[in-house]
């Protein structure tokens, strides 16, 4: 599989204004810290983690909706971080995003037709009649009908609004879509419809997804490979079967164990990890997970673990695994 996207050393530190101008910028929120991964063409990479782990910041940086502090984002071999704003805007035709809250992402004063047409008009890919035909084609593509074109977002249910958001993201025939918690706000019976739609679109249009979510079940279902983030770092990345069947990192193990399964009593057990997620303003020294890790060792409190590859294609950043050989980075 050829790589469509490769991210290296991606980092985002937000300066946090604390009071007056004299000490502004002294505190740094280390939202994303030295993140590396690749996404193959036509693949879905799942990105999971709890709130504040930096997963959404990663997604937005890929499209430079948030500017990275440092790092490279290579899309089809070109480093997007170095592009001038005009050139970057042109690249965004090929890279789109679908947000969690379809209501917040759709302008309530625009009709569905105008919402879907907007990117076409901005990029001037089609005109007049053709643009309108394209809107109707997209509506049908996402399971809506032509008569919906004249309506406004508030007339739709949450699931239908997410379909509108997806139609808009597809308007310019992108190759890559960041799906940022696209089903988290939806009712359970509607979630499955949207997940199936995203999979159908991928199969038909050859799309590549970065699928960001906190729901491990949904991520497992839709992804080919999965990356797990904790406090701004990727702690583990691997093929989904291997990662779920044999998670290497204690955090991944805890995360999977914490999912309540729809099997009575079988799954009633003690919490795998205690404590809360530390602040990204002041992340723990050494391994960032050491304050909650059930397998913590002295070295974890001092030394940040390197990313290694204990099994082919399965990378982990944890002192439980031999540290001497650094991972050959391009493998992921």
């Amino acid at each position, binding site marked *: 599989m050829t790589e469509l996207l490769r991210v290296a050393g991606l980092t985002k530190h937000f300066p946090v204004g604390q009071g007056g101008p004299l000490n502004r910028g002294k505190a740094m929120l280390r939202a994303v810290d030295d993140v590396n991964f690749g996404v193959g063409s036509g693949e879905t990479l799942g990105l999971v983690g709890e709130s504040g782990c930096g997963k959404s910041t990663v997604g937005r940086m890929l499209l430079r909706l948030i500017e990275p502090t440092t790092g490279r984002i290579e899309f089809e071999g070109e480093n997007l971080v170095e592009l001038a704003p005009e050139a970057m805007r042109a690249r965004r035709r090929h890279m789109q995003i679908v947000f969690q809250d379809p209501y917040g992402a759709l302008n309530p004063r625009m009709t569905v037709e105008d919402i879907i047409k907007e990117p076409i008009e901005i990029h001037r890919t089609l005109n007049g009649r053709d643009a309108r035909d394209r809107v109707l084609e997209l509506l049908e593509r996402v399971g809506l009908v032509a008569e919906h074109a004249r309506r406004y977002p508030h007339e739709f249910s949450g699931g239908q609004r997410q379909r509108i958001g997806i139609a808009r993201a597809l308007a310019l025939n992108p190759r890559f879509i960041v799906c940022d918690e696209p089903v988290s706000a939806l009712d359970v019976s509607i979630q*499955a419809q949207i997940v199936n739609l995203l*999979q159908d679109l991928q199969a038909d249009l050859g799309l590549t997804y970065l699928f960001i979510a906190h729901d491990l079940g949904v991520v497992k279902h839709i992804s080919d490979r999965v990356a797990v983030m904790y406090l701004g770092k990727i702690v583990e990345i691997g093929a989904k079967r291997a990662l779920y069947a044999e998670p290497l990192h204690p955090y991944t193990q805890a995360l999977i164990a914490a999912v309540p399964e729809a099997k009575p009593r079988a799954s009633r057990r003690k919490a795998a990890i205690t404590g*809360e997620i530390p602040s990204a303003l002041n992340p723990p020294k050494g391994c960032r997970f050491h304050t909650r890790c059930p397998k913590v060792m002295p070295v974890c409190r001092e030394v940040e673990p390197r990313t290694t590859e204990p099994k082919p294609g399965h990378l982990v950043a944890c002192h439980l695994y031999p540290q001497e050989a650094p991972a050959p980075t391009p493998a992921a």
Partner: protein
Amino acid sequence: MSLLSVRNLQVLFAGEHGEFAAVDDVSFDLAPGEVLGIVGESGSGKSVTALSIMGLLPRPPARVARGSIVFEGEDLLRYGERDLRRIRGPGIGMIFQEPMTSLNPVFTIGDQLMETVRVHERAGQKRQRDRAVEMLDKVGIAGAERRLDDYPHQLSGGMRQRVMIAMALICNPRLLIADEPTTALDVTIQQQILELLLDLREEFRMAIMIITHNMGVVAETADRVIVMYAGRLVEQAPVDGLFARPAHPYTRGLLDSIPKLSDERERLKTIPGTLPNPASVPPGCRFEPRCAWRVGACAAAVPPLAAIAAGHDSACIRHRELPVQ
């Protein structure tokens, strides 16, 4: 004997085009010490049911049009605000999805916990403080003594939910209503809070009504489950029976549409269509327009609850014909 007995509850909301029933003809019981799960999606009426029990419905637009809610032998619907206040706290406590909506941002958590003790026990200052510390300790807040002076915004979401639980339990209620208590929390914190609730249930010997959209949460916590759809109770069963032999097409659809960690299917099964608009629900079975098993009779009349097994009821006229799963 039931701790709580809800009979034929109907709650109407005033809408643009007249009143509609957000909860319609709902009946169920809750035994002392039992954990009852109420599952449903948006508009199912699960939260409205809980608010009716607490006497906390927004009135207007809501009103209870019919039914009874009997708690320890007394019909709460006949009570005025003053009597309800006597029940809330020592009788029934409640926690919500978003603790910030229930905690007052301008008072310390100590003030709020101590006030609760003061109101319900008329205890002195020292006793109030001791109780507050004791409760924070019980809900797993480390350094409880120091935490009394914290304001709600200084706490994480998980910690706030623990404080909410401490406030609800400080009067030792016989029933705790937990409305989506972990929905806003991360999965590792959710697990801690659910475990805490079950531990406290043992310790306080209280019943819990846990309202959630998450089938996994129900499976891990409940003794018995009620499934609601569009304002109606469609199925109720002991938790094992519900997951082993779901007897309503909606319950089956809901269980099938969840992607499970243990499963390898290529496609998810879906329930077609969308949830009905509460103001214009189908006349017969409310699930009929989305149901793969529908026949003419389903749209004609509201299906009654029929017994499938001991304690297991389904509001589906074709429940006998559904294939065994």
